[in-house]
């Protein structure tokens, strides 16, 4: 007799480990794919996976096999025209007719690349890895929003502090009324009987006394109904609902003068992406304002921001001016949390740098939650850096960092992140 077993609810994802092994083995390719994806994506688009393609020859699992050549004699089905001794032109490209073509493996050796989909988590993992984020931060960022507890009616159990007095007492009253009702009815009947008897007999009459005694018993029973039963208790019920706090605007400022090459822009892009990620975990709605500048600043869309090329000198203050104006025009109300991120190679027109510092310190930083500056340059600190250095320490909402590789990006956010953690 057979056993019939329902395994449908047993553990799924038995292959998860094998999938991880696969990912680890082809980490190089996957990282390259993720890097390409980041360059091609909008900085807001971090919540999707990515498809990764790996050349199938990298994945091959070799076996000893015959190559083409030699003698192959094979049987086919469905003869419709041949007789023994017929000669046939060799099919094109099929030298040796490939004896191992069929049945040799079920792997489906296709010429195409092996393409598969990274999930959102896997994608972020690789993204974070490049940026050398600490683990705690990773989990915090990858997490979907925070929760706020909100009232949701009443529950039958809970902790004493949540006890709702009015509801509980109302319940108790109802219960007492309901349970006491039959006794009250009986008492009224008995009382009526007594009244009837008293018309004919004296109060000392046996019958009257018995009835009065009965009434006493019933009253005792009514008394015995508990005033407040555990059954009556009602507690305020609270549920947790996802609660991104409010709105934020993020300013991305980038120097697009001739000295900023593609690689520097790619680094800057990761910096903006990471800030954006931080903000999405805290705010429900985020506006992003892109300001690029060389000698003059301009607000542009994301496409232009990362991809158009400009050349010429650099006047950083133009961007800061524009940023200040935009804040005053559109984001002046207290409803907006304002974040700024500035990327540059630090090469500014000499006389402009002090003005930048002034602008920042007086017209911008006071309204900001956080402003981060990165200088992407391998060499000596440039003049803008030296000016900004003076700001450091005077306010808590300013951070700056010199960046040579992706891993240097994270420290900029360290302070910021500490704040959101608490």
């Amino acid at each position, binding site marked *: *007799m*057979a*056993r*019939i*077993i*329902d*395994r449908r609810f047993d553990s*799924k*994802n*038995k*292959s998860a*480990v*094998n*999938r*991880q*092994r*696969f*990912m*680890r*083995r082809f980490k190089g390719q996957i990282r390259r794919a993720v890097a390409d994806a980041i360059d091609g994506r909008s900085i807001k688009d971090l919540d999707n996976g990515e498809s990764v393609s790996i050349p199938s020859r990298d*994945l*091959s*699992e*070799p*076996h*000893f*096999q*015959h*190559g*083409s*050549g*030699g*003698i*192959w*004699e*094979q*049987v*086919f*089905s*469905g*003869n*419709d025209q*041949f*007789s*023994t*001794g*017929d000669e*046939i*032109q*060799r099919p094109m490209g099929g*030298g*040796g*007719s490939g*004896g*191992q073509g*069929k*049945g*040799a493996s079920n792997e489906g050796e296709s010429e195409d690349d092996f*393409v*598969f989909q990274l999930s959102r988590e896997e994608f972020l993992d690789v993204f974070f890895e490049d940026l050398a984020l600490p683990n705690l931060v990773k989990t915090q960022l990858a997490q979907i929003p925070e929760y706020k507890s909100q009232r949701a009616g009443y529950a039958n159990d809970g902790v004493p502090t949540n006890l709702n007095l009015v509801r509980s007492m109302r319940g108790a009253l109802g219960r007492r009324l309901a349970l006491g009702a039959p006794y009250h009815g009986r008492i009224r009947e008995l009382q009526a009987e007594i009244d009837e008897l008293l018309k004919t007999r004296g109060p000392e009459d046996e019958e009257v006394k018995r009835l009065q005694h009965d009434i006493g018993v019933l009253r005792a029973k009514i008394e015995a109904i508990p005033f407040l039963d555990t059954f009556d208790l009602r507690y305020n019920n609270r549920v947790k609902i996802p609660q991104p706090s409010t709105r934020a605007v993020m300013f991305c400022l980038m120097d697009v003068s001739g000295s900023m090459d593609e690689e520097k822009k790619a680094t800057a892009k990761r910096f903006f992406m990471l800030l954006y990620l931080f903000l999405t975990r805290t705010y429900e709605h985020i506006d992003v304002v892109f300001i690029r500048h060389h000698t003059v600043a301009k607000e542009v869309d994301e496409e232009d921001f990362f991809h158009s090329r400009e050349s010429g000198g650099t006047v950083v203050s133009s961007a800061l001016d524009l940023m200040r104006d935009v804040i005053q025009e559109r984001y002046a109300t207290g409803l907006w949390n304002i974040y700024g991120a500035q990327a540059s190679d630090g090469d500014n027109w000499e006389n402009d740098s002090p003005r930048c510092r002034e602008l920042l310190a007086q017209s911008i930083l006071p309204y900001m939650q956080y402003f981060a500056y990165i200088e992407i340059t391998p060499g000596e600190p440039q003049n803008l850096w030296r000016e900004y250095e003076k700001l450091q320490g005077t306010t808590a909402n300013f951070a700056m960092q010199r960046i040579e590789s992706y891993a240097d990006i994270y420290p900029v956010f360290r302070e910021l992140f500490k704040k959101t953690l608490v």
Partner: protein
Amino acid sequence: MVAKKRARKPLPSPSEWTFELIEEYHREIARVAADYGLDTYPNQIELITAEQMMDAYSSVGMPVNYHHWSFGKQFISTEKGYRRGQMGLAYEIVINSNPCIAYLMEENTMPMQALVIAHASYGHNSFFKGNYLFRTWTNADAIIDYLIFARNYLSHCEERYGEEEVELLLDSCHALMSVGVDRYKRPPKLSLEKEQMRQKEREEYLQSQVNALWRTLPQIEAKASAQAERRFPAEPEENLLYFFEKHAPLLEPWQREVVRIVRKVAQYFFPQRQTQVMNEGWATYWHYTLLNTLYDEGLLADNFMIEFLHSHTNVVMQPAYNTPWYRGINPYALGFAMWTDIRRICEHPTEEDKRWFPEIAGSNWRETFDFAMRNFKDESFIAQYLSPKLMRDLRLFAIMDDDRESRLKVSAIHDDRGYARVREILSEQYNLGSREPYIQVWDVDLRGDRSLTLRHQAYKRRPMGDASDEMLRHVARLWGFNVRLETVDDAGDLLSTRECRVERPQKLPQVA
């Protein structure tokens, strides 16, 4: 056969299955199977989801297996194909174990579940239990336990020596799986406890043996033996994994155990590769026969039969060579046709059949079936039982492709002159020995650089494939010293040599 009974009330046949119905259908199928005398292991039927089916796919169909990236790759590609609707999943997977485990997919309709039960739990199951290859090479009682042991052992190794280390070793072992089977020796039966107990013992013993092999010999003796040209191995060894497990000088004891595990798994699957046509044909024949018998008894409704026949027909379709979906001979089609044909020869032999099959024409078909199922593999089964009538029905013909000729030649077709030849070629096509290159461990340079020589016996001048150089790197990783692959022709003359040198013997070579 039972005389046709008065039509009974048919079993309900909704398209949704329930556990009660599966049980009911199973009871009837089991009864009929017993009437036909099918001898099976006890059955265990497990209902699984599509996702679990994909899991099972990617661990070569086994319920447990060790972890390896290649299984992950398999899973990802299966999942991708399935999600995009490019491929359907198999209706079932059946495991040669005792009890015989059959996986049924949740998505199947009730008629499909019944078909699968008949196909897997009675067809394949009886084949596993009866066929000599399975009886000799696999141990149905112990396989699940052994795989549990293997998985635990490998994860233990990963903890101790690192995942990467184990993975590289497994890569090389997997590459050699097809040359890691004994074709002639019989493997011993083992149980889980015995295996664990013996594993430690073996580890120590093996290591001591290897050391003995490489012990520096006294000077004089060395001279003497150099003259004698002592060969090692004394006989060429065709099981490369076995050879490395026992004799590779640089492997650690745990590495030997891993080689052994892969070898055991390869050995377990070896019979399946040799009996595809027979096994699938047998299972298909029996699901067809069992369900038709139930229908004749009036137990199956017409709508059930229509759906069943639809699936059955899809399975046994054999496209012609010139259709775009021709993928070679369909083992289900060929196998089903052959078993059906054998029964025909037994029950209604023609003059031709009596000439070709004097010993089975007119015999008891059940006995003939049983004999054929027990004692053959694809190669010999086709050589023995493929009838001229079937060759005509399938319109089989053979094409000779000789790379020295400019044109292909039709060497035989389904006519009186060609029957024997077509049958011979088709049988040869299922001979694993000629389908894959035949490679043996030929020689080890014991007193020199310890290099290993493999010998490829070229068959019909077929050369080694492109992957050979990479394969040699895998071999070298296990052996630890230089490896050479010689290809020789039938006369034993050397045709070509490939070599993989290991620069520093301490460091295992990297395989791309």
